[in-house]
């Protein structure tokens, strides 16, 4: 799957590319408005990560360009502005998601995963992951065909882990995923531990292979 990263900060592009490389993704980068416009005109991408402040132009214009070309690519705006108006405007024009900088790579990966999945399986909303099957629409999870009851937060966590296979995910990234911007305001994210523990217990009880590992002192890893 092809991803275009439109972002003028080269270091960030490098890290995002590296982080996503483990997945089935092929990342390309555009560092300016012009470069991005050219690439959008020539190629088709599954997902475009779009910074709004670009040398040579406004990211929102690029978004319009994308929509005019009628490309069926998912768009995630990554912006440092974090202005509600920009967010609303971007989503109105047709962006699929909005992520404020600075973000956790795991959060970005989860969002990309979700956007691409939405675009690809237009009607089917199932994720199969070895013995685990997730029905996104009904929000149900089955392990070995046996349905397990997850809370909303546990369900979110599971999707987050699946979207970040083989990555170490810090507790703060999980906290931010669960409670949004508010997580920023706290240093202690101990509640994450409780949710993960519950999720793990439910999955284990249903007999899944132990994919969810605790990385000492740092966070968790969905190893597959």
């Amino acid at each position, binding site marked *: 799957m092809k991803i275009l990263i439109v972002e003028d900060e080269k270091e960030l592009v490098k890290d995002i590319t590296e982080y996503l490389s483990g997945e089935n993704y092929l990342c390309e980068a555009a560092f300016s408005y012009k470069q991005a416009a050219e690439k959008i005109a020539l190629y088709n991408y599954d997902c475009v990560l779009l910074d709004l402040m670009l040398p040579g132009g406004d990211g929102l214009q690029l978004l319009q360009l994308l929509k005019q070309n009628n490309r069926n690519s998912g768009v995630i705006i990554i912006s440092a502005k*974090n202005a509600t108006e920009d967010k609303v405007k971007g989503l109105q024009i047709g962006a699929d998601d909005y992520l404020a900088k600075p973000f956790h*790579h795991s959060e970005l990966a989860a969002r990309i995963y979700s956007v691409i999945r939405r675009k690809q399986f237009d009607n089917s909303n199932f994720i199969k992951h070895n013995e685990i099957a997730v029905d996104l629409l009904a929000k149900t999870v089955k392990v070995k065909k046996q349905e397990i009851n997850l809370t909303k937060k546990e369900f979110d966590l599971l999707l987050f882990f699946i979207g970040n296979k083989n990555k*170490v995910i810090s507790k703060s990234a999980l906290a931010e995923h669960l409670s949004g911007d508010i997580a920023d305001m*706290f*240093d202690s994210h101990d509640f994450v531990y409780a949710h993960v523990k519950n999720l793990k217990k439910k999955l284990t009880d249903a007999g899944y292979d132990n994919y969810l590992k605790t990385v000492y002192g*740092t966070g968790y890893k969905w190893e597959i």
Partner: protein
Amino acid sequence: MSKLLNKPFKAFTIYALVVLVCSVPVYYMVVDSIWLEELDEHNLIIKERIENRFNTIEINEAELENILKIWNLLQPGTQIIASNLPEVKADSIYTTRRTNAYSSVNEIDRFRGLSSCIYINKKPYHLTIETNVEEADETFLAITLVTFLFFSLLVAGFIVLNRRIAKKIWQPFRNTLNKVKSFNLLTDKNIEFEKSGIEEFEELNTELSKLIERNILIFNQQKAFIENASHELQTPLAILKSKVEMLLQNKDLTEKQSELINSINTPLSRVTRINKNLLLLAKIENNQFAEGEHIDLTTILNENLELLADYIEAKGITIEKKISNPIRVFSNKTLLEILLNNLLINAITHNSVNGKIHIDCVEKRLTVSNTGNSELSSNTLFKRFSISSSETTNSGLGLSIAKEICARYNWQINYTFQNNLHSFSIWF
């Protein structure tokens, strides 16, 4: 404090009093001397007339004797007595005081007298003329009374004029004062002073305008600096965060290295938080939030509580919510969310483990209280970075943002400490 115009008024009044009091003896002396001089002249004229008349009617010695006898009997003011002195006495003028023998009231009168020598039929006679003069004390009293009457008139006039002048000429000053009073640095609007046509006030207005302009400029520069600085910091912070996360993905990390990376994360997220909040403050100050809508406060409150539920639970905090009536406010939704969030986050982070949070909605007031040990200084509480920086959980900006939002909508926010409860109340 006394009013400015009352100061010269007081001085003027005292000065007028002194001058008028001094004028009383002067008037008296002038009036009295005129009196006496006129009477002397009067007496002299009478003397001349008497002398002249007696000499024009030609009468003999015996008749004269008879007439003088009757004269002296009937004319009490004058006396003509044959002079039997060897030499003629010089004219003399004198003042005498005695009781008026013919008055029913026994009072002392003052008389001005002329004693002179006249010649009738070439024989010397001694003539004395006495005319009543106004009493000195009576003159003095009259002058004093009149003077005080005029003094009262002056003072009354001063008061009336003072009021009128105060109202009229100080009007431009009052206009300026009201404008300056209503000036708010945050609204970013310069003041337009009215033209008064009075040099002093124009000068004052010009200088005030300059001062305000400079203030606005400096304030704007400061705002711009904070905004630019935090904008510039955003990218390096994002990269730093990204790098730390990439480092975590390293498969060969030892336990110690992992711990080190984690301990970088804590201050890093604090810097990110401070930076975010500074940007937010700058945005509120720059009025970069849309005007707003009618919002039900309780809905937002419940949404926020739900988002915070994990943190509340993790600390074992119990929430006691008393909402006696729903509060509807007109504001920007994001700002209202931030305001409530900051208060709630504050109540959570500064709470004790297993503490309590009370949320009360009464009429137009929302109060968020949490358990605490000692009172905080309400003077510095809302200032930026006033809380000790050693507390890593704090950006030091939460309450100043809350205050800024309240100021924007003219809501009142205050802090009280009672029964071991820190309470923040907002009047919408």
